[in-house]
């Protein structure tokens, strides 16, 4: 059980990031999830990603819906504000929060139930608005917290322990996000931290809506042999289509690749993302190509992972809105109120 406390003592040997913080400063409360739950691994990857990105914890805002996955906002970044909202509506809360202050790093945590059932509409619209946030779906094919019903991401033919078989096609957040205008679309696996951490880092650094769909098995309700969201199944059908490395603003890109093998995308924060493709017939910076690739592989039952599509040039919500540089919530009242002078104009108009 994961409630057994890890000591919060800082070992002398723990490394510190540029802010002088150790990884412990990025941890949160103790997890109350089941031992072995994939979500706890995602939590660990997020801790690592924020630590490595040198984000001051209080400059991040964690927002989630309802579900086992959504609970995890309490388990990382204890030094950040957290907002555990209502089921399926995290995107709208994140939108409002981001509107008020575009300078915070907004991290949204959701589940497949939360985002693809009740939240399907809000999810699509957050994608469309290119809301500048990192949006993580901890995808286990079931509703964990309500005891294991199929979610909309359940694959055709997947079977529950109790015997029910899902006969509906899965909703794939990756394909939907590409079709809906998403600008950063990635998939990871909670069992592959090595891939997940750079994906999350790139997603956090991305200026715009960054989807990271993480296959994150539910050990209690969906990790048996007939499940297609189990650790075993995911490992078997797992396909890394694009390796990704996030390169810090000040770092140099050390490795050299042959032409066509790797693509570098510059990020708005000054860093860059290095993409190494496994397959040649696929360009992750081209929407049509990315969609085709993912769709084709999915139709063969493959679980394609990596940073599958990226477009760093689309304007985000604030860019489109031409919002003032000073965060809205920090604007002085005097600047917001048109005063008597404004009133005179109004009165004149309605006389």
């Amino acid at each position, binding site marked *: 059980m994961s409630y057994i406390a890890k000591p919060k003592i800082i070992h002398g040997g723990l490394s510190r990031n540029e802010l002088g913080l150790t990884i412990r400063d990025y941890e949160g409360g103790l997890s109350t999830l089941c031992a072995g739950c994939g979500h706890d691994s995602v939590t660990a990857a997020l801790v690592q990603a924020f630590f490595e990105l040198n984000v001051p914890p*209080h400059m991040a*805002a964690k927002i989630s819906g309802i579900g086992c996955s959504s609970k995890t906002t309490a388990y990382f970044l204890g030094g950040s*504000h957290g907002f*555990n909202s209502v089921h399926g509506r995290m995107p709208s809360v994140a*939108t409002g929060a*981001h*509107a008020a202050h575009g300078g915070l790093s907004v991290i949204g945590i959701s589940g497949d139930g939360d985002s693809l059932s009740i939240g399907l509409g809000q999810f699509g*619209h957050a994608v469309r608005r290119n809301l500048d946030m990192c949006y993580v779906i901890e995808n286990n094919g079931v509703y964990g917290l309500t005891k294991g019903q199929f979610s909309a991401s359940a694959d055709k033919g997947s079977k529950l322990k109790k015997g029910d078989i899902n006969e509906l096609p899965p909703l794939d957040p990756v394909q939907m996000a590409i079709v809906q205008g998403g600008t950063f679309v990635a998939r990871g696996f909670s069992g592959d931290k090595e891939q997940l951490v750079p994906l999350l880092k790139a997603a956090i650094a991305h200026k715009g809506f960054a989807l990271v769909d993480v296959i994150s098995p539910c050990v209690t309700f969906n990790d048996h042999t007939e499940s297609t969201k189990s650790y075993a199944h995911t490992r078997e059908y797992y396909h890394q289509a694009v390796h990704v490395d996030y390169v810090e603003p000040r770092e140099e890109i050390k490795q050299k690749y042959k032409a066509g093998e790797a693509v570098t995308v510059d990020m708005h924060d000054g860093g860059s993302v290095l993409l190494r493709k496994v397959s040649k017939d696929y360009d992750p910076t081209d929407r049509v190509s990315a969609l085709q690739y993912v769709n084709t592989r999915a139709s063969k039952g493959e679980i394609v992972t990596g940073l599958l599509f990226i477009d760093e040039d689309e304007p985000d919500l604030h860019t489109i809105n*031409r919002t003032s540089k000073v965060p809205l919530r920090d604007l002085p009242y005097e600047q917001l*109120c048109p005063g008597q002078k404004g009133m005179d104009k109004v009165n004149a108009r309605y006389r």
Partner: protein
Amino acid sequence: MSDKENRLNNFVIRLANVNGTGSASANNLLMKSIFRMGIPVTGKNYFPSNIQGLPTWYEIRVSGDGYLARAGRTDIMVAMNAQTYGQDLKQLDAGGYLIYDSSWPREKQFTREDVTVLGVPLAKMCNEAFTNPRARILMKNMVYVGVLSALLEIDEKVIHALIEEMFAKKEKLIPANKQAIAMGKEYALEHFNCPLDTKLKALDKTKNHIMIDGNTASGLGCVYAGATVAAWYPITPSTTVMDSFKSFCKQFRENPESGERDYCIIQAEDELAAIGMVLGASWNGARAFTSTSGPGVSLMGEFLGLGYFAEIPAVLIDVQRVGPSTGMPTRTQQSDIMPAAFASHGDTKHVVLFPANPKECFEMAINSFDLAERLQTPVIVLQDLDIGMNDWMVEEFNWDGAYQPDRGKVLNEKELEEAAAFYRYLDIDGDGIAARSYPGVHKKGAYFLRGSGHNKFGGYTENSDEYQEVLDRLLVKWETAKTLVPKPVLTKAKKKTKIGLISSGGCDYAVLEAMDRLAAQNIFIDYLRVKAFPFTQEVEAFIESHDQIYVVEQNRDAQLKSLLILETKATKDQLISILDYAGMPLAARVVVSAIDEHLAKGAVA
């Protein structure tokens, strides 16, 4: 009901049109001309829930005495809609005038002996004068305004000035419009006995006043309140609140050089998202609001409960239309009172404000943010469609430069730095309100907000005592709210009386008129208009000091009365309902006759 004697500056014109035919601006011109002549006036639009082709009516009440409620009578009917001709004719009061387009013969059955029918061949005249087909339709409206200007004696200079303002940006349309006015005027002067007995005479009663609708005023109020984030989903009749906010933001909140905007308006995908955005923005320290109508309020229930329990400020402007369900989206009602006050499952209560006129729409928009942030809870402004969508004469707006928004208990960087510890839900001073912190200000400010059980320190709990402690504190906050919400307006009768009347919102105009009429019958009633829920001690005092209180409201189920019963010391017998809820604005006569009847019954019993 008016009789011939007093129709000077005291009558109602009803204009029956087809929507989409451009009558709105002509009708507005007519109304505005009267206003500029210094005569108190209101204009009401009864429009269909449709874009083009259905009947629509515009009703102008002229009242030298300044009574601005729906009169409930028609003295002059301009019957431009063939579809509703019969019905319009019927609605005209005896002794009234009917103006119609005589280009085609009227059907025989549509005649009445007790009214004067004035035919004007509007279509013919326009077809002769204008060539553009659209102009031929539009100009008919201007011609009947011209006709009326002769019949009623409207100042031509005023009309011309208004036309010039109207078409300031399309100057070349001015001559044609003036021509149409002149055509109408000439025709009337030639064919009818001008002026009528029903006519205008310039006064000096509209100085320092403007004509504005409530929704425009609300949007303006949100600008002055310093709201920076707005999220909404279009819905009649609240859409113009956001239109107004947007247009004033464009005027006042854009940097002319950089084009930078000091606001962010998000058209959400639906109402659930809109209120979610408001909560997210408020949590993050912005003043944020949404506007909607009944169906939207229903959809926002879950989030409103979160706002209540997790204590997040939020402002929601609900412009009420006729319910239940889709109901009649373009008709007025006050039937969201209980639904707003108790929105969401579980034990929830929300602060509700009831503006009675555009001026209060403006003021209460500002109040609502102050209250929402001070009380850390959603505040719902319940506006009647009749107030929100129609033009009302109100005093000019003046701005108190000393006003500073009340942002409530928010710890700033320094306070957080110096604090030994910060607990989000710990009430230190006993007013039921704990301090909050914004994200990104200081590391000590971090807390975890949740709609699930939490204790006063902000920790998750499933412990009964801890849970109850928080829920009970919200009742303490409710008591605090009673001391902060706007106080009611008392209009004392000329004589001491034990009879009272309580009403709210848009009923105000009709009730005030009714009080005068009743006083003329020697019936004296003290009138208290509540401006907010929960009710303040003034409301309690009023109830205590009156034996019998009429509660006037525009819904079927006596929702305001229900709140009074549940949340004040009023006894049930003490309160007598006067209900009017068929979608039309309240008329004084409804109140007068209900009270007359009730008192007569009491006298007999």
